[in-house]
């Protein structure tokens, strides 16, 4: 049995508090960025609207045909380029590929810098907690929340390296703050040993994958909410109504959001499948049966089925887009229920993991 180091535990709590504070400032910066950059984009759009025709000419000029005319349209001999099609300029949303564009967004840079600082402090909090307890820092609900929030923000920052998802910042950081506050206010637990049922290497495997998958589901939840807002906005814009959601200018179009959240959900679904399977293997080791419809097992299964439905919905006519986004949101709601209600209200074998 490792020795409990309470001093480290206290440092950990201090780090968590500092991280939450830093995130709060980052959150404000992200919100400022949404407001300010959207305003700027609007000005750019208005200018661009006047010269749309010019823009099209420029695009066409960039496509110089290499071959000479007069050849068979069905063959390669006379053509080197595809006809200019499919290149549509979407009005009022950010680029669909979510790559970094040239423009500087000072508030967004400040926000990302603060988030990096926050995640470092947060990481220190998670690590000191782990050393304080002499084990992995996910043995109870407090630790699951603090570590889960850390992983969510870290995953967000990692994705930021490749893709410009800064428009998600307010949502991800906002959720991370909620998780940290909930952990400290509702689920606070002093650093301590694990009960015998949790003393297994499966705790490391099963729960770490669950945390990681939940973090990914958090990202896609935020994206699905934005997708619904954006698709509503796109529809109302197309109908010629006033733009009530100006800040959504910074957010890519609904289809791009849907495509990216599908890709992330696919990874998270595999993770959740492993969570379920490793949970079953552990349950067999600890309780003698691999599946017993314990409330936690029920909800883990429900989540798995809902996200399986989401993946299938993408291949079903009439279920793509808005409905798929709702499935993703319902799935995340189940994740929340699985974590909160199932551990606290329902009476099951996982009840001890909380308090």
């Amino acid at each position: 049995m490792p020795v409990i180091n309470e001093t480290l535990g206290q440092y950990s709590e201090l780090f968590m508090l500092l991280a939450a504070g830093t995130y709060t400032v980052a959150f404000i910066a992200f919100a400022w960025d949404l407001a300010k950059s959207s305003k700027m984009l609007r000005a750019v759009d208005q200018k661009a609207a006047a010269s749309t025709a010019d823009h099209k000419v420029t695009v066409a000029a960039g496509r110089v045909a290499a071959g000479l005319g007069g050849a068979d349209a069905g063959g390669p001999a006379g053509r080197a380029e595809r006809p200019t099609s499919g290149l549509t300029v979407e009005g009022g949303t950010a680029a669909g590929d979510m790559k970094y564009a040239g423009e500087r967004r000072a508030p967004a840079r400040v926000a990302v810098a603060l988030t990096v600082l926050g995640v470092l402090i947060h990481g220190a909090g998670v690590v000191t907690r782990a050393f304080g307890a002499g084990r992995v820092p996910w043995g109870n609900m407090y630790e699951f929340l603090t570590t889960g929030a850390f992983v969510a923000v870290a995953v967000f920052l990692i994705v930021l390296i490749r893709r410009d998802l800064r428009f998600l910042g307010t949502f991800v950081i906002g959720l991370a703050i909620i998780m940290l506050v909930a952990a400290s206010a509702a689920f606070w637990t002093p650093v301590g040993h694990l009960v015998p049922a949790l003393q297994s290497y499966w705790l490391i495997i099963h729960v770490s994958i669950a945390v990681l998958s939940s973090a990914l589901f958090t990202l896609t939840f935020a994206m699905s909410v934005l997708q619904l807002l954006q698709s509503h906005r796109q529809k109302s814009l197309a109908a010629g109504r006033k733009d009530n959601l100006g800040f959504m200018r910074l957010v890519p179009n609904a289809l791009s959001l849907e495509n990216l959240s599908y890709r992330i959900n696919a990874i998270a679904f595999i993770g959740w499948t492993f969570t379920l399977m490793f949970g079953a293997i552990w349950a067999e080791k600890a309780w003698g049966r691999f599946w017993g419809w314990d409330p936690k097992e029920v909800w883990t299964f429900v989540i798995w089925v809902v996200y399986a439905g989401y993946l299938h919905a993408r291949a079903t006519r009439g279920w793509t887009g808005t409905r798929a986004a709702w499935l993703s949101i319902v799935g995340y709601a189940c994740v929340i229920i699985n974590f909160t209600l199932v551990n606290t209200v329902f009476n099951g074998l996982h009840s001890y993991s909380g308090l």
Partner: protein
Amino acid sequence: MSESVKAKKKSPAAESTSAEGTTGEGKLQQAKSEAALPALGFKGMLRWSWTQLTSMRTALFLLLLLAVGAVPGSLFPQRPANPSVVTQYIKDNPSYGELLDALQLYDVYSSAWFSAIYILLFISLIGCVTPRAIAHYKAMKSQPPRTPKRLSRLPEYGTLALPADAGIPASKAINDAAGLLKKRGYRVEVRDVDGDLPSLGAERGFLKEVGNLVFHTSLIGVLVSVAIGGLYGYSGQRILVEGDTFVNTLVGYDQFTPGTNFQSSSLQPYSMQLDKFEAKFDRESPGKAGQPIDYTAEVTTKETPDAPGKKETLKVNDPVSLGGTSLYLTGNGYAPLVTVRDGEGNIAFQGPVTAKVQGDNYYSSVVIKVPDAKPEQLGFVGFFLPTAFVTEDKISFSGAPELINPQLSLNSFYGDLGLDKGVPQNVFELDVKDLKQLNGRDLAAGGITLSPGATVSLPEGKGSITFDGVKKYIGVDIHHNPGQLYALIFGFLAVAGLVMSLYINRRRVWVRTGTHADGRTMVEYGLLARGEDHRLAGEAAALREIFAREWNVPETPDTATTTAGSSSTSKDQ
């Protein structure tokens, strides 16, 4: 799943009306039959139901229904997990308790409606997987589809121009391209190699669909494995006091749940003796004092009655495997040792009494039934406290889980215990309705309070009771599930299939070459994905690079590829 199903989904209604039209009946008749519901007939109805059931939409609906249907099982107590809680729940909620029972909400996972959902879902799945497997088998054996007329319509398209002095004619270029694509894992067919416009069709990623099929088939495998476990498995419980031995025969179990096809001859008569049990409790963390941190049971096992004993350790999360079963440490508690002498002075009972843990710090209830006592049978009800404390209000509680100040507090009764009637009784409960009370807090004789070693005589010369000491007991679960290994294998197969189906991309590539009037060899190529494929653009760029390297074509902006966007899906077409 949708594609193949949708393609087949020719409305049977339309078929039947057209059939009627050709029978030569009047126009009016035809119009009537079109206006009214078309008669499908029994066969048509069956076909219609089958098409409906195996449609993607229905499968999705059933899948979501399965999720919704599983939820009540977490809201209401379930019989398989906890039958006594269910009985209590119905008693506590007389207004709707019975109604819920009628709706099978206490047996959700074996209920008719839940079974209906998953059986329909699996039939739908089989109906979906089988035709797809056949179609895919054919696709794997057939050649890539013919070269489209306009490659430029494909989501990824590019061209290359080989200078006239390079000496690569159109036919060589197409063969080179074929070689390169084959190396990249494509199945390639070259067409019209000596014609004006030689072309090739190539395809890869057949394993995507294989993975998809493996995933869905494995789910059926998991279901079958679970069913096998239910048919041929068994499980049971046994409480073992230190020194006790469990022998794996039907009488050795306190509780036994056989599978549907269980035969008692399949029990191997191994044995396990509990030598020693030790529980450790947290004594250093504030706020968590008394929380258990370790349970260890030292046991001696024998594979057969004559085999030599083997020392083993049984822990939580670390079961012992014996004779095809696994034994799990699922509970523990204290068993006070008691000697009861009857009114004639003879020992009527001697041994450990399993105290059932009821509250914090091993606050446990104790029931002792002494049917052998003469002239009157004796019964005791009370509680055991490992570390007894008494509040100012005379309420006893246990202050710690360890044996610091063990105490046995009992009320005593005499009379007919009712054990001779043959009606099964709960050993943890004593029905005092027909008994006369001897000791109790409210009686003149007072309650019995015993420390180890103490003896108390019962009033009216009915006998005496001695608290000899305390032993520990463990609760052991014994499980045999022949299906679980298969469930595990199918589980991993399912994951492998899932990963394959999500991350292998089915792609088609076509290349066409031709000779330009000025002598250059022109090459055009197009790519098409089946299903989601956000890396199609990357593949197009990679192909372009290997083509350019093969033919030494300098990359100029003139011949740069254009794409519709970074991500392409089949939906775009």
